[in-house]
């Protein structure tokens, strides 16, 4: 095919635009507005309609345009349906007063979600009470196995019994495991738990019971007393398992014939199940030792529902009284805790026995200071304060159970009785811990007085203040007492000598301080903490607490100018000297800043401080830092940069960016952000000057361009660089900095050959082709308005770009190059118009420079012809390849056809012949999309109606939809 002659179609953009617009249809008054959507009264979505009262009546008026998003949320979406379900429960109560009264009473008796369950305490206790001492487990298994076989049992039974006994002997009927480390001990207990389950599932109920008895016997042993609370937790787990197994077994016996209702009564239970249940209780009643008998009976307490409804009412007080027989106060108090736990679970309405437990505890409180306890402590070398803290979990729990939804009078009574006892610090602590925070807060001053009266040698005071602080963090004391409370408390806290104890307590009180006082008080507190934690680098062991202090302050102080005007805040930050912790702290500060800073700021205090904080984060980045970590840090720093604004002082903003670039040079996303910021700055300047730069502002925007120009090369991501070059070039052009814009575009062009064939996107290797094509198209459309450089030839940049495209090593078998050529054609066609489609104010494009010079047009047309020639060559080459080649050929030919149709002057016979040929080529192998072809044909026919387009109708006749194959 010989060289084609190109003639661009002359475009009248304005009239074309006008023609392309939709017809305006006058609106009749009665017509519904098209945007006012159709109102459908969907009765299904009006679930729980009663709740919304008035809105349901407005459904027909249509005044509320139902936004599709909001209608989604209108009752039909599952989450709000849940909410509606729970909300609708409440109003139903108010229907009949009698019923509601009853229900409320029932509610009070139940345990609500506000009751902190035991499972929440478990982990805490296990983590807190540990030991390095050696432990021992003494299990006494199978000794009293099988009483004398009944006289008339058969021979085989006797033999079996005998064999079982022998087996037991082999196992070692008495196993004593000595010298266990704590971990070994925990493992052993877990093993026993497994043994229990296995024994149960293999129907060895007696063995299971024995395991449980032996385990609970371990609870009477108080050697290695520091570990006792943890031991209690481990062993009660086994007891719970056992209780559940027994309950489920009896339950399954009941539901053999018919399913039993969840709220069954003893009458629903069949005789066999009752008998089995009774047997368990008889068996347990005959356990010799007190402690196992108590624990095991408590464990299966729930089963007494099978026997009678009221049995528990008698059992619980009996078990409570039974605990009086336990001499060791620690063992007794934990037994009470267990009983309270079971009580709360099984019969939360029986508050009396909970109360009795507590008063019994008070009655036997002096046991804690008895001689036998003292002797034991001396023997085990445990200090009294340490010993007393062992009680806390149990007493806390008991008090929590007793005080749960208890009337104010009961709480007062309990407190009075605690007061009467000597050495009541331990109780006081638990009272503060377990009672409602509001109750404690209201009497905070009283409590401080009581704490002061406590014996210094007993329970550590900092723990008492810690507990008080925890209550005050949740509830507010009377306004006029707050300052004196803080003063009194801090007077004691500041005297705590051990840094660890000090910080534990101080950390709690920071919350109270932040909540009620200003920065001055917080500053004082911070100063005090610094003073205590600096000697001997004590802060090194207290990072979690110090972090929590920062978190609490950030919770209450969202105004960063206030925050940073606290003198001691930055010195406080300096205490975080471990890198990972420091970065964490900085990160949390930045998160709060980004979340709560509403307006851009130029406050030098904030900027300096945050710059410091950000620098700390930035400096933590090294070669080993993970990509994700970098990304999140960059995000935070970017958030900060976006919030910095010096208003009209653009120069300072630029110098801030210069500084920031120096500071954050290792984080690429930050650099990208900075370039965007500077570009935005240039555009802002232009907006302020309304497009007319003065000499000063012109120099400034050139400085901005220079900033971008020297920053971009330091990025590693090639597409960031390309896009930023293009963007910055556009900005420079908009600001009439022609030579700068030229430089940006040139840089972009000369960067093109370096684009790798594949890049990593989100960790996967992808071909870069699509990105490159996107970029080039974008670039081409910009080039329309870029005026030619006076010293370079015509269309210097376009030619440069196309040359680069030609020389670029594209992927094999890819027709990306040809597609670039095809997409360059519209650009060239646009360039040969008299008036360009778009222009930049105050920048003369080629249209003005050349003024439709025929020589220029000839250049453009020549370029087009070369391009078309290249494309046609490629098409020919594709034709040789039978398979995929032909298919590609069809597509490409069709897109070139489209391009000719849109931009070429088809009155020219040669061009129109070429177009027809291309049409035929694209249909030759039947790979084209017929629907598309039909639509194109319709478009041509439609176009031919337009003036000056008559020639198209002739061409349309020559285009057939049938393939000629």
């Amino acid at each position, binding site marked *: 095919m010989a060289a084609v002659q190109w003639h661009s179609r002359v475009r009248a953009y304005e009239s074309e635009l006008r023609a392309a617009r939709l017809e305006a249809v006058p609106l009749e008054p009665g017509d519904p507005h098209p945007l006012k959507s159709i109102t459908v009264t969907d009765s299904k979505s009006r679930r729980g309609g009663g709740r919304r009262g008035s809105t349901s009546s407005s459904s027909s008026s249509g005044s509320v345009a139902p936004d599709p998003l909001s209608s989604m949320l209108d009752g039909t979406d599952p989450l709000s349906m849940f909410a509606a379900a729970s909300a609708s429960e409440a109003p139903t109560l108010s229907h009949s007063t009698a019923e509601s009264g009853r229900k409320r009473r029932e509610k009070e008796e139940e345990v609500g979600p506000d009751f902190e369950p035991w499972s929440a305490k478990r982990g805490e206790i296990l983590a807190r009470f540990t030991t390095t001492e050696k432990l021992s487990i003494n299990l006494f298994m199978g000794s009293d196995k099988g009483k004398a076989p009944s006289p008339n049992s058969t021979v085989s039974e006797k033999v079996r019994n005998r064999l079982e006994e022998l087996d037991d002997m082999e196992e070692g009927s008495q196993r004593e495991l000595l010298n266990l480390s704590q971990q070994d001990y925990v493992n052993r207990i877990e093993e026993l738990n497994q043994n229990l389950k296995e024994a149960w599932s293999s129907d060895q109920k007696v063995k299971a019971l024995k395991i449980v008895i032996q385990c609970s016997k371990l609870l009477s042993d108080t050697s290695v007393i520091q570990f006792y609370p943890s031991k209690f937790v481990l062993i009660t787990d086994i007891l719970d398992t056992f209780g559940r197994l027994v309950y489920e077994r009896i339950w399954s016996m009941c539901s053999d014939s018919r399913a039993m209702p969840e709220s069954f009564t003893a009458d629903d239970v069949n*005789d066999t199940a009752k008998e089995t249940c*009774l047997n368990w209780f008889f068996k347990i009643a*005959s356990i*010799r*030792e007190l402690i196992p008998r108590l624990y095991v009976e408590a464990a299966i307490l729930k089963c007494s529902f099978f026997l009678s409804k009221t049995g528990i009412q008698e059992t619980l007080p009996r078990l409570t009284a*039974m605990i*009086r027989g*336990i*001499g060791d106060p620690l063992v007794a108090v934990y037994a009470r805790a267990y009983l309270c736990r079971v009580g709360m679970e099984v019969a939360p309405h029986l508050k009396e026995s909970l109360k009795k437990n507590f008063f019994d505890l008070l009655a036997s409180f002096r046991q804690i200071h008895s001689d036998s306890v003292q002797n034991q402590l001396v023997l085990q070398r445990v200090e009294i304060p340490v010993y007393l803290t062992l009680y806390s979990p149990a007493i806390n729990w008991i008090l929590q159970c007793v005080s749960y939804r208890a009337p104010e009078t009961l709480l007062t009574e309990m407190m009075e009785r605690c007061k009467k006892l000597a050495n009541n610090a331990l109780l006081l602590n638990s009272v503060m811990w377990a009672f409602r925070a509001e109750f404690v807060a209201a009497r905070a001053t009283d409590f401080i007085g009581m704490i002061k009266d406590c014996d210094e040698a007993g329970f550590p005071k900092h723990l008492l203040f810690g507990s008080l602080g925890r209550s005050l963090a949740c509830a507010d004391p009377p306004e006029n007492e707050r300052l004196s409370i803080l003063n009194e408390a801090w007077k004691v806290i500041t005297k705590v000598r051990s840094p660890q104890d000090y910080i534990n307590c101080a950390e709690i009180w920071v919350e109270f301080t932040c909540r009620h006082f200003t920065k001055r008080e917080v500053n004082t507190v911070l100063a005090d903490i610094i003073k205590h934690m600096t000697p001997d680098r004590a802060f090194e062991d207290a990072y979690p607490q110090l972090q929590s202090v920062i978190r609490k302050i950030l919770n209450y102080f969202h105004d960063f100018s206030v925050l940073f005007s606290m003198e001691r805040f930055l010195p406080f930050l300096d205490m975080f000297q471990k890198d990972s912790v420091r970065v964490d702290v900085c990160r949390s500060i930045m998160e709060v800043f980004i979340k709560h800073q509403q307006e851009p700021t130029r406050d030098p205090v904030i900027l300096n401080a945050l710059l410091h904080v950000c620098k700390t984060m930035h400096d933590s980045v090294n070669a080993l830092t993970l990509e994700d970590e970098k990304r999140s840090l960059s995000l935070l720093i970017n958030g900060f940069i976006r919030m910095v604004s010096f208003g009209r002082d653009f120069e300072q903003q630029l110098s801030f960016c210069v500084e920031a670039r120096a500071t954050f040079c290792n984080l690429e996303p930050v650099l990208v952000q900075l370039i965007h910021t500077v570009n935005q700055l240039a555009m802002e300047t232009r907006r302020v000057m309304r497009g007319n730069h003065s000499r000063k502002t012109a120099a400034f925007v050139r400085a901005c361009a220079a900033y971008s120009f020297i920053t971009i090369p330091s990025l590693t991501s090639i597409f960031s660089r390309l896009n930023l070059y293009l963007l910055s070039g556009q900005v420079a052009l908009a600001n009439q900095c022609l030579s700068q814009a030229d430089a940006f575009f040139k840089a972009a062009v000369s960067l093109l050959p370096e684009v790798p064939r594949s890049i990593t996107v989100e960790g996967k290797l992808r071909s870069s082709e699509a990105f490159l094509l996107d970029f080039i198209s974008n670039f081409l459309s910009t080039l329309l308005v870029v005026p030619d450089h006076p010293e370079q030839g015509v269309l210097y940049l376009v030619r440069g770009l196309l040359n680069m495209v030609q020389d670029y090593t594209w992927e094999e078998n890819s027709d990306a190059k040809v597609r670039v050529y095809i997409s360059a054609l519209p650009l060239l066609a646009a360039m040969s118009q008299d008036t360009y489609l778009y222009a930049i104010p105050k920048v003369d494009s080629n249209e003005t420079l050349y003024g439709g010079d025929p020589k220029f047009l000839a250049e453009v047309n020549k370029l087009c012809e070369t391009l078309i020639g290249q494309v046609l060559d490629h098409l020919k080459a594709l034709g040789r390849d039978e398979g995929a080649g032909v298919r590609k050929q069809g597509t490409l030919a069709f897109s070139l056809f489209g391009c000719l149709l849109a931009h070429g002057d088809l009155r020219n016979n040669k061009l129109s012949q070429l177009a027809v040929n291309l049409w035929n080529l694209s249909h030759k192998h039947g790979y084209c999309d017929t629907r598309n072809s039909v639509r194109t044909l319709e478009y041509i026919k439609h176009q031919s109606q337009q003036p000056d387009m008559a020639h198209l109708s002739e061409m349309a006749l020559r285009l057939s939809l049938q393939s000629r194959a």
Partner: protein
Amino acid sequence: MSVGLDIRLKRANKVYHEGEVLAGVVVISSKEAVQHQGISLTMEGLVNLQLSSKSVGVFEAFYNSVKPIQLITSNIEVVKPGKVPGGKTEIPFEFPLHAKGNKVLYETYHGVFVNIQYTLRCDMKRSLLAKDLSKTCEFMVHCQPQKGRLQPSPVDFSITPETLQNIRERVSLPKFLIRGHLDATSCVITQPLTGELVVENSEVPIKSIELQLVRVETCGCAEGYARDATEIQNIQIAEGDVCHGLPIPIYMIFPRLFTCPTLETTNFKIEFEVNVVIVLQDDHLITENFPLKLCRV
């Protein structure tokens, strides 16, 4: 070919009273039909007496075991010789519980020297080639409630070194005062033994306080009688140095089978006692004995 033979009583707890009807089913389960020479049921109630070696010579204890006393006996043929079809066959039966002659049905009791036991045995006779099958099942008899009002007869006690008997060295005994009471010494067998105990003071710390339930069995025979006290169970009610001045509950459930209402007959006697045992940390053992009278109402 395995044949399962089982007896199922109607009552889950297997407890019956004199005059009632012992009812249930014999269950024969087999895959195939079973040929047999007749199935019979035997009900028997026996008192087994045994003389302890302590009170009589060893040999005599062996040979001179007192003859068992038969309280009730009854035998019926359930099925005549023939064939039981395969699958599960249930054959119901009923026995009226009436004592032999002028005897009474004593309550079931498992002791050491006295045993009162009621059994039901099912025998399936089979041809010479197959083994006979037999299945035994025990059932409980509770005696009729005693008539007349029961006097609880509570008892207060106070234990000090001075109140003790049988002491070796009164001098070395530490000082202590333990007070308490039992709510009743005439107890209803289905109700627990209850009471309270207060350690008012004790020079030596207490190690443990236990309740020891003791059976006292007396067997009379031609040569005289033998009386033996043995432990049934021991229940700890206090462990360690308990709080002084705080009442500790005394609570013990009477174990089933191993206790029965106090019984006195011409041939034997079954009585019960409870010991409150206080063990001091220096291993002094202090015991206070209370005879009990158990009955059923």
